[in-house]
Each structure stands twice: as structure tokens, then as C-alpha cells.
């Protein structure tokens, strides 16, 4: 899937770029974005270190286990293949809380920690597990209660009017994400294929 989308975006970019006479802009965008990607990653190091450090303290002191236990009724339904006392649940819950509160800087490190812990439970390391896709989909659909600071700054006094609409719209998109993941994970196209079978398919 990603292979086709990735190639498709670049191919369409070059095709449309030639057609629109913007091929120089396409070239520059490719080079600029390659640079920007590294800047983003490097910029993450400090924030990641800060939150992963604090998280380690929360983990060792048992705080994460307490939070994970409390929210188990919800997480059990969303992530049925993660064991009850696994640290992944704690990180997932904390990531979602940070997202709800609009703390983007804290949410990313917590989310990456959760991914790492979900990867421990994953049999096929190069393939996303059901729980990983569910976790990602919930993250991309955004579950914010507090509006992004950029929106507040842009909208001024009108911001109070879009507060309710944003919560309703984001709730709809999150529910849609959960339903779509649960529906698609059972389709044959996206089903998990055991390693041995996959090799046979590749050769055959």
C-alpha cells in the first residue's frame, strides 16, 4: 500500500510539475523537505529525552501501572491482544491523555514509547500488528479537547464558537477510525500473513 502511495505521490508530483511548468519547484521541494526531515528529527531529540526520562521515573514508581489498570475496560476492547499488565497499555493511555489535553510535545515521545512496547509483542517486526494500526489510527484522527495554540491565536474571539464543533468533529473522526480499523483488519487484503506463508507467496 505505502509503496504505491509513496511512488504515486512522487510520480504525480513530477507529472503535474511538468504539465504546470513547476518542475523547478518540485525539485526544490524534494531537496528542501529532505533537509527539513532531518531538522525535525534532530529537534525531537531534546523533547524525547525529557519525556522518556520522566516516563522512566513514572514507570519505575508504578504510576503507569496504576493508570493502565484504571482504564483497562476501555483499552481491553481497543487492544485485545495486549496483556493486561503490559507497560504498553500505560504508555498508550498517557499518549492519549496528552493528545486530549493538546500537549503535542509530550504526546509524541509517549506515543513512540508505546509503539516500542507494542513492537515487543509483535511477531513480525516489519509488519504492523492490529494494536499498532489501532493506536496509530486513533492518533492520526486526533482526540483533542483543547484547541491547538495556533488555532486560538488565529481565530481570536471566534475561537469559542469552534470549540464545540471541533470536539464533535474530532469525536466523529476518531469513532470512524476505530470502526474502520476493526473492519479492515479482518479483510483478506490486510490480514496478517504468517512469515512462512508469506515467503511461499513471494516465491510463487
Amino acid at each position: 500500500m505505502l509503496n504505491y502511495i509513496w511512488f504515486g505521490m512522487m510520480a504525480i508530483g513530477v507529472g503535474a510539475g511538468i504539465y504546470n511548468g513547476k518542475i523547478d519547484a518540485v525539485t526544490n521541494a524534494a531537496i528542501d523537505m529532505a533537509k527539513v526531515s532531518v531538522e525535525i528529527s534532530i529537534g525531537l531529540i531534546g523533547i524525547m529525552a525529557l519525556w522518556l526520562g520522566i516516563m522512566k521515573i513514572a514507570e519505575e514508581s508504578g504510576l503507569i501501572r496504576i493508570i493502565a489498570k484504571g482504564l483497562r475496560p476501555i483499552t481491553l476492547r481497543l487492544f485485545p491482544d495486549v496483556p493486561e499488565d503490559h507497560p504498553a497499555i500505560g504508555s498508550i493511555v498517557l499518549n492519549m491523555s496528552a493528545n486530549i489535553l493538546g500537549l503535542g510535545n509530550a504526546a509524541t515521545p509517549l506515543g513512540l514509547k508505546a509503539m516500542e512496547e507494542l513492537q515487543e509483542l509483535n511477531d513480525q517486526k516489519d509488519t504492523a500488528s492490529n494494536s499498532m494500526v489501532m493506536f496509530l489510527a486513533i492518533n492520526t484522527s486526533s482526540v483533542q479537547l483543547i484547541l491547538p495554540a495556533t488555532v486560538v491565536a488565529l481565530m481570536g474571539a471566534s475561537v469559542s464558537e469552534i470549540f464545540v464543533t471541533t470536539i464533535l468533529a474530532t469525536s466523529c473522526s476518531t469513532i470512524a477510525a476505530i470502526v474502520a480499523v476493526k473492519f479492515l483488519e479482518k479483510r483478506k487484503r490486510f490480514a496478517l500473513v504468517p512469515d512462512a506463508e508469506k515467503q511461499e507467496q513471494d516465491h510463487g
Partner: protein
Amino acid sequence: MVELFVGGLNNVAKYIIPTLLVGIPFYALSVKKIPVYEVFVVGAKDGFTIAVRIIPYLVAILVAVGMFRASGALDMLLNLLAPVLNVVGFPAENLPLALMRPLSGSGSLGLLTDLVNEHGVDSMTAKIGATMYGSSETTFYVLAVYFGSVGVIRSRHAIPAGLFADAVGAISAVFFCKLLIA
């Protein structure tokens, strides 16, 4: 009333991070007698490796998105889709933002700023735009960072599910704004 509530929430929000930064070590140190400084450093070490591990995935995704954006392909897609969307009542001015949102955070913020400058903060267009922006995340970026950090290459149904949710989010943004804002 709502204004007060929003103001209150955003006021509370600015205390959350400092409270966590002090509260967690406080609990660990006073209740559990954990050597907080040493444990912090052990955890923080992973920050570097994770951030560096993301780089190739982020380069791949952001370069492809950047090329697509710069080529004007989005405008061509808009022309193609505009007649269809007029029929279902989706405002054409908000379409670029809806299409940009899953691709690029900075790109969609730019489009939202344009909408606000052009139509004013009191316009329906700006309110729908802000709702769209606030109710979704940059799907491709989050996918590259999250899956990249653990080396997952086969994303399975993550993209179809994510894009479906984005579409539902954009449509419900229009729906709820038209319903609730006079």
C-alpha cells in the same frame, strides 16, 4: 459561558506540563524512594536513538508529500472534485484544507491562515477551516514517525483507515459548523 470554559481549560492546560515534571519525580522520590536523577538519565538516553531512527522514514514521506504539493497537482484535483462537492453541499473554499490536512501540518496551517485573512475570523469559511484543522492530525507524518521509530515497513490497513477517518472528520466539520453556528 463557552468562552469562559475555553479560557478556563486553556488556563489549566498551561499548568499540566510543569505539574507532571514535578509531580512524577515527587511521587517516585517521596513514596517509592526511587533515585529519580539516575532513572531519568537512563530513560532519556533513548531519546537520541529514537529520533535518529525516524530520519529515513521521515525523509521518504516528507519528500514525496513536498513534491506532490509543489507540483500544483492539488489544484488539478480540486478542479476535478469541485463539481461533485457542490452537489453534496461541501464548500469549495474549504476543500484545499481538507485535502492538505493529512499530508502536511505546516501546509494546512498556511491554508487556514489564508482562509482567515481572506474571509475574516467571523466567516463561516474560517470557522469550518479552523474546525477541520483542529479535528485532525497530519496522517502521513504521524505514520512515518510512529511506524518508523520501530522499523515497521508494512503498514497494512493504517493508511486506508487513517484517510477514511480524515474524510469523516472533514465532512463532520462542515456538518456541525452549519448546524451549530448561525
